[in-house]
């Protein structure tokens, strides 16, 4: 059951992730990214992070991606035009660096945690709204408040950047 659940959504996430990179139209990439976020939310549910899973769907897939699609439609962004002249360095150095990065990450995850336990559903149920809220307003109160200031700054910055100049 766990294995089937993991395989299904991991496969879906990787498939949509490949689609994000390969699609030539930004809208297709954005919709694939929504697929990645949905599958990851299901995996979070399996890992006992219920609140984060719902926040992932509402905030990421619901708010941030809608913002992206909104901007794509606003700018009327079409398919990519041909490759720029500078991108051969990225192609020459990027592919080996990419493979090296992937192998390093896999090595890190398998070597440092060789005998890690298996994930079973229901093992850890500390990710409900109550536990998250309790931790957020006791141990992590200062980061939480700082985050609100950060969002305020982001709102003001976005308005300043996007407004029309008034002469």
């Amino acid at each position: 059951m766990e294995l089937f659940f993991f395989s299904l959504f991991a496969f879906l996430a990787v498939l949509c992730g490949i689609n994000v990179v390969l699609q030539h139209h930004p809208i297709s990439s954005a919709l694939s990214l929504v697929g990645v976020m949905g599958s990851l939310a299901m995996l979070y549910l399996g890992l006992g992070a219920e609140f984060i899973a719902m926040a992932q769907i509402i905030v990421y897939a619901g708010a941030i991606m809608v913002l992206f699609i909104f901007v794509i439609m606003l700018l009327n962004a079409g398919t990519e035009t041909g490759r720029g002249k500078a991108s051969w360095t990225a192609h020459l150095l990027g592919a080996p660096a990419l493979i090296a990065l992937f192998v390093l990450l896999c090595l890190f995850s398998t070597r440092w945690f060789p005998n890690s336990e298996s994930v079973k559903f229901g093992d850890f149920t500390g990710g409900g709204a109550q536990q998250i809220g309790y931790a957020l307003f006791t141990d992590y109160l200062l980061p939480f408040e700082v985050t609100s200031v950060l969002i305020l700054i982001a709102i003001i910055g976005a308005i300043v950047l996007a407004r029309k100049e008034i002469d």
Partner: protein
Amino acid sequence: MEPSAVLKSLNGGVPITWYLTLSAILFALGVAGFLFRRNIITVFMCIELMLNAVNLSFISFAHQHRQVSGQLFTFFVMVVAAAEAAVGLAIILTVFKNRSTLNIDEIDTLKN
């Protein structure tokens, strides 16, 4: 090891390293898109993909250590991603208004 032996050793669960490997795959895909794509909006979306990959690692570790702190880090990453998306898309809008292009190769005023 034979596939059936692997399945038996899993004992009905999924090792945490599989989650970390999935996270690595998604992160590498994000880096690939960041390097190879020329559209500034797609590049931005690949950054979001990398953030999501890291979030999966955080949640896996939170499950392994039976602590809620890792999930809170994911929460903060989400908030920062939302702020980043708002400001970044505003910057993209301004760039498009001034340069009328979305190709990152043509936005090279700061180069040289």
